[in-house]
């Protein structure tokens, strides 16, 4: 019996060993990731966390959560406005309420990551060690809310990390003013803690600087100030916003940290960009470290980009078809007509304008920016992986290789963002300007004008004229001045706005500008203009091939190669691209909130007019 008891004892002991060890042996920790509890120990932890925010910046592959690649349709795209063709349902006004909208949800995902750092920072002892990264979190939170503001207007305001139990999930929208005030307060809190400057070769180059936050503040306050002003808002509020905008832009100007590329001021900050002369503006957008311009100027010479999404020929190529997609961008006649003649007058007033008779005639004696933004007929360009500039000398070899010259022009071709060097698809590496100095200068001029109803010549010289004359230093183009406006019967506001249209083309400002100016009912519902079909200019196929002819393919006949458009012609023989049918009502100034979100949170009110 004793033996038996021993046996039983042994068995129970054995079972017991397994029993006891079980619970402890079920506590397993991740092996290839860090847990939050083991993080947030030093300043570098905060820095690494903040590094993710730089993906939020607008870049060649993603704008506002649209990730389909460079220059494809996105919520801010110029093609939804009137300067570029083919905006799909957004250009016809027939867009409907989507079930889901990544622009909405992705911004909140990004806002969460900002809130996450701010929450962790609140419990961190050495605040000065992490002040810069806290400021970055605030800057990027403001950046995301500004995107939401532009797209949807008032939205729910979330400034802390939520979980599935949070009541904020079911909260209604904050007011538009609350959203704007949140953006402003985040930026103002961030500004003092951001570095005044970061040297171009420093390890932190590319991070948000004080000027970047100030410039952004200038952008936001101009946006909201004019939005309110043109919608009969509270004058006290919009004037205060415009004052803030003027002050913010002015601090960037007076900081002397940035200058327009291709100017003496830029050379003074390092690098020689004036060597490119007038064409500096053209080459800035395709500025790479491998030779990408006749003078071999590299990115070190660029002091115009205040905040950019950065690429590199070796470590970070863009990876999507930039040049190839930009080549396919069709420019409207309306955009062409925005460019002044070199006497500073609009084409309808200028004696220098050569008319629409030929493609090339339109480029004669114009603002140089036209020939640097739109392809010039009978010139040689990069096209695909095989045709490219070799030495930019325009000699016989160079020309022989860059056979992009087209004898039959297929409409107006965009030139911005298209490299001229030998570059495989996706291997471009120019930076994407999120904020550049020229915009700050134009923001300043506009804010001053809208605040005061007038702008002094001194203010114009300190801002807008710098931008205008960068590419027109030698062709005798006059400055914009009050006297010039008065003598020629021009309108100062129109000229200031024209400057934005011309300078910031294809940088996704036009659509949002028109919205804040509240002029879409005029600007968008027009004939955007095609080219003259079949006339002496050599247009064999009117712009745009796949664009907005009237009728369907079936109507146009089976000829796919050169279908005959049935559109009417205007007095100049140009095809009328009829935008007058575009549906644009007050509701279109804001995008509809995605219906899926309203289903989930019935307290979320749809934007007015969208049902």
């Amino acid at each position, binding site marked *: 019996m004793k033996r038996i008891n021993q046996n039983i004892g042994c068995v129970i002991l054995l079972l017991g060993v*397994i029993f006891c060890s079980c619970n402890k042996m079920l506590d397993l920790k991740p092996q290839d990731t860090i847990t939050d*509890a083991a993080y947030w120990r030093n300043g570098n932890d905060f820095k690494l966390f903040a590094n993710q925010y730089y993906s939020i910046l607008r870049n060649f592959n993603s704008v506002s959560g649209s990730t389909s690649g460079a220059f494809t349709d996105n919520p801010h795209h110029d093609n939804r406005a009137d300067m570029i063709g083919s905006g799909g349902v957004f250009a016809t006004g027939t867009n409907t309420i989507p079930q889901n909208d990544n622009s909405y949800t992705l911004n909140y995902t990004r806002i969460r990551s900002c809130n996450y750092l701010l929450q962790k920072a609140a419990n961190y002892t050495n605040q000065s060690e992490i002040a810069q990264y806290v400021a970055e979190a605030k800057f990027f939170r403001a950046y995301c809310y500004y995107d939401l503001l532009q797209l949807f207007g008032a939205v729910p305001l979330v400034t802390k990390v939520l979980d599935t139990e949070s009541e904020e999930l*079911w909260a209604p929208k904050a007011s538009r003013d609350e959203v704007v005030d949140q953006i402003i307060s985040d930026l103002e809190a961030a500004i003092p803690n951001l570095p005044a400057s970061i040297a171009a070769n420093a390890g932190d180059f590319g991070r948000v600087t004080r000027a970047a936050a100030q410039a952004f503040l200038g952008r936001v306050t101009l946006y909201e100030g004019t939005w309110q002003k043109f919608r009969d808002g509270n004058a006290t509020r919009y004037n205060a916003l415009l004052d803030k905008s003027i002050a913010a832009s002015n601090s960037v100007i007076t900081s002397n940290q940035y200058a327009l590329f291709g100017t003496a001021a830029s050379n003074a900050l390092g690098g020689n960009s004036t060597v490119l002369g007038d064409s500096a503006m053209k080459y800035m957008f395709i500025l790479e470290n491998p030779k990408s311009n006749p003078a071999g100027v590299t990115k070190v010479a660029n002091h115009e980009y205040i905040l950019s999404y950065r690429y590199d020929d070796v470590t970070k190529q863009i990876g999507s078809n930039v040049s190839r997609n930009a080549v396919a961008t069709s420019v409207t006649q309306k955009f062409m007509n925005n460019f002044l003649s070199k006497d500073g007058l609009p084409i309808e007033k200028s004696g220098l304008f050569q008319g629409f008779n030929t493609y090339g005639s339109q480029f004669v004696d114009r603002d140089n920016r036209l020939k640097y933004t739109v392809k010039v007929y009978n010139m040689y360009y990069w096209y695909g992986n095989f045709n490219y500039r070799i030495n930019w000398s325009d000699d016989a070899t160079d020309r022989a290789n860059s056979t992009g010259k087209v004898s039959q022009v297929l409409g107006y071709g965009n030139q911005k963002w298209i490299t001229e060097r030998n570059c495989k698809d996706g291997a471009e590496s120019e930076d994407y300007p999120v904020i550049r100095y020229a915009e700050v200068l134009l923001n300043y001029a506009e804010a001053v004008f809208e605040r005061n109803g007038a702008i002094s010549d001194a203010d114009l010289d300190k801002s807008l004229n710098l931008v205008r004359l960068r590419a027109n230093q030698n062709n005798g183009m006059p400055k914009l001045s009050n006297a010039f406006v008065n003598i020629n019967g021009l309108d100062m506001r129109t000229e200031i706005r024209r400057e934005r249209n011309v300078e910031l083309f294809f940088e996704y400002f036009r659509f949002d500008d028109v919205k804040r100016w509240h002029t879409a009912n005029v600007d968008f519902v027009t004939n955007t203009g095609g080219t003259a079909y079949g006339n002496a200019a050599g247009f064999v196929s009117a712009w745009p091939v796949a664009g907005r002819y009237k009728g369907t393919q079936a109507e146009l006949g089976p000829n796919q190669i050169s279908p005959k458009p049935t559109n009417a012609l205007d007095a100049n023989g140009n095809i009328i691209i009829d935008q007058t049918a575009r549906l644009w009502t007050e509701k279109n100034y804001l995008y509809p909130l995605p219906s899926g979100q309203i289903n*989930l949170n019935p307290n979320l009110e749809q934007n007015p007019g969208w049902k």
Partner: protein
Amino acid sequence: MIKCYTVECRKKVFLFLLFSVLFHCFSYAQDRVVSGKVLEAGTKIPVIGAAIKIKGTTRGVSSDVNGSFKIKAKDGDVLEVSSVGYKSITVPVDFSKDLVISLFEDNKALSEVVVVGYGTQKRATLTGAVATISSKSFEDRGPTNNPLANIQGQAPGVVVTRTSAQPGRENWNFQVRGVSSVNNQDPLVMVDGVALVSNNALNSINPADIDNISILKDASAAIYGARAAYGVVLITTKRAKGGAFKVEYSPTISRKLIGLQPELINLNQWATGLKQALINDSYGIDPESYLWYQYAQFILKSGLIGSSLAGTDIPGYAGTLTNNPNLRYNGLLVPGFGDVKDLSFFDTNMSKILWGPATSTQHDLSFSGGSEKQAYRVSLGYLDDASQLKYGANGSQRYNIRLNHDYKFSNALKLATSISLERNDVQQPTLYGTGGYSALSTYSQPGIPAFTASGKPYAWGTVYSAPGQLRDGGDNLEYNYRAFINSNLSYNFLKHFTFTGIAGYNLWVQDNRVQTKQVQYYSYNDQVLVATNPLSGIITSGANVGANYYRQDINNPFYNLVAQLSYSNTFAGKHDIGLMVGSAYERNEYNLINTRTYNLASDEIPYLGGGLTSGTAGFVTNGENRYHSALGSYFGRATYAYKGKYLVEAIGRYDGSSKFIADKRWRGFYGAQAGWRLSEEALVKKLNFFDNLKLRASYGTTGNQADIGLYDYLQQLAVASSGNMLGSTIATQAATSGPLVSLDRTWETVRNYNLGVDFGFLKNRLSGTFETFRKRNSNMLVNLAYPGVLGATAPKTNDGELKTWGWEGILTWKDHVGKVKYSISGNITDNQNKLIKVSGAANGITPGYNNLVEGYPLGSYFGLRYGGRLQTQEQVDAYNAAYYNPGGVINNIGLPAATPLQNQPGKFTGLRPGDNSFVDVNGDGALSTGINTANPGDLVFLGTDNPRYTFGFNLGLQWKGFDFYSILQGVGKRTIFRGGNWRVPYLSIFQGQTKSYVGNVWSPENQEAYYPNLHSALNNGINNYNYQASTWSVENGKYLRLKNVVLGYTLPKSLLAKQKAISNLRVYVSGSDLWETTKIHDGWDPEATRNVGGNERYPFYRYVSLGANVTF
């Protein structure tokens, strides 16, 4: 003590001794020979190899080929006669005559020992729903790469499906009684008591080593608690029973023949169809200026079929074929494909070029034997599974060695050890799925040759020859090594008490080596290098990732410890009591490392570090993945039977998982089962009708923890490259990873209900089982949708609910006609499910496949109701008028506008006679696809992708040495809406089109044709409209298939008797999947998946095998 001093006495002693000796002699003399014959009762067929033993001794003989035996015995001895498959009987010796011993067939169903969780039970007293599969299912089936292949149609309640036919990657899936959750659906598989980490391990197990499989379908699975929600499969491997040394060898050779896949049209048919479609699209006018029309014309009229026309042979050619009216050949306009260098018109059929028959072999060799103390079985297996894909490295091999050893230390202490070493290699061409015209995607149109005149890869513009890509693009070699080591110690330390300890260790090691080479493609005459793909050696991301060498190693050990204590006893001869308690711990450790080198110096011997710029950032990439998980358990079972009539059983399990936070980690599962053997009741016995009748009922809970993260209760941060350039480098970032932390979730619990009846009539000739079940998962782990302001994905929480129900049955008839024995068996399985709750929000539905929709089964199809074909222009006009723009709202079903054509007066765009119409189901006057279940528009439920009414019929015949066996298997109901563009003729012009439409397209003369009016990519609006998901466009997935047929012949013993080596020899011929009937229109196999994407494109094959079973 006898004192014997007298002579008399001494005499007596002498006599006694003498007598003793004599008696001794006599007693030997008394052993006489008994002879007899063992026959099967009824058929009178001799039973070969029956064991005849003198009871109480170890002496025994076996019956010969005629059933005859001779054994020495003495008066009063009793013979014990036994043979596998028969009931053992005892017969008293009788020297007076030749004994004729009739053996009755064993009622296997009742005496069979069934493996259940942590133990065995007799079939007769089993109360759970347990399906069993014997080793018979794995015999004679030709080379078998996965045992699941042979289970198809064999066990009621078990639905086996396959997704591919690629050797080594057939992706056999199986479901026990339908779905139990929206999460992972893999049943838990245990081999000899140790769980498999992944059911992929079944790819390397040798089916010839399987003795039997038990599938626990109901509450009986509850003893495996946490992972038993999808059923539990218990595989038991073959063990020697001891006895004489025996060698068994089974070689098989098989020919794989290509089964069903879409047949492609030839060049002439392609051009003719294309031309017709284009003319239709152009409203009856020949679209002369359209490139593809020109091409079709060129094919039909140039007379070049069977040859290639080099660009340089065309007058006026200047490097490219441009759209130039002057570029003519024999007066025909040369179509201006800017990127092509020549025009080829070979009557090629890419599916025939790529796929073809192949030969596979399998060899199984086993040695077994033993003594009183031990028994061993050593088995070796080799499978060479050849591929139907004809280019590049292809195929799969399996190497197995297994030792199953049983050792008896004493009658009380026994050790059973199993060691299995397995290797499974898979080869495939690296680029087999790369690009738009690869072997696994759309095939190029007819006309394009695989290779150039000199055998180089051919390209036609950007259409790269798939065979060239397969042959020259590098190989993907995968080596899997698995070791299963498992010791089972049982100690009967006290009467009625047994302790069992199991220690198991499984190791999976994978070595994957993938080389991607650049392929250069040429024009047909080899003169022009058309393209190089992948483009270069330095592109490290994106679609055109350059030439590189990649290596990945996985090391995945798994440990399992089980201790259990059992007690069984019978009281008063009628109370059978069994108790078992135990505990278990198992732990899985996963390690993966991978690395890739770009820009290799040599393509011939690729190795890591062999890159021209090795070590340079961007040219070498590394990765690591490590995780672990553990499960701790206590379990127990109590059984009670009264007189073998009233059976009850209780099961409990308490599981703890490392996947959940500590205070939600542990959960109990339990089951209760009861059975009533009516056939043991006197009343029923009196009827003398039922041989067996048992009612069973069970209820139990099982759990699931699949498809959730391993550490989701901890907020993790992923440190990785941000992709953002700060300074001069790409900055590293830290970011929160995964969904939100879940602090309150726990196991899914599935409640299982089962009712069953087992019966046998007519001397058990007719037997069967019928069962009905119900499952409810009411705390299913699902992702509820939260407002986007949350800014993160919500964790899966226990908020979902799913209901599953169904029934299954099996009926077997066994009898003989004269000397022909036969058996017929049929089984059928059906189950349905309904998703009660999954999202917490309105459920979106889209036309076509919808995985999760509340109120509907998983994998439901929705679509429009087909309203018939529009036959006349009047019908078209009326339909357009009613539905194009009703009430000013344009329809959203893609019904095109009917606007007058300016250049063809009197004609309209949009539909025309021969196109489909659909029905306004909800009667709102408009045709619309809704957005969710609350607002479905005109969408109707079309059925589910899950097969219903899956069935199998087995027929077996035996006559003399011949045996015949066949399996018919099928599905009674399944809906398929195929993805991809093969099902729509000319939806994509430049690809091979399937033949199914030829001659079956609507025309005014052929109004009843299955296919609508032919349209091309030029008018895909109408194509997409016609072929959208509807009651017309879905395929009927039911089928009946001859799964297997075997004819075998066992050589008579008399032939073998002359030699000593071979004791048994059987040869057979077998065929798999030889015939089927199906309703599928697009040519795919009815078993194929709904998308037939990726390696699902491997055509299913038919197998013809020749094999033998030899015993030495």
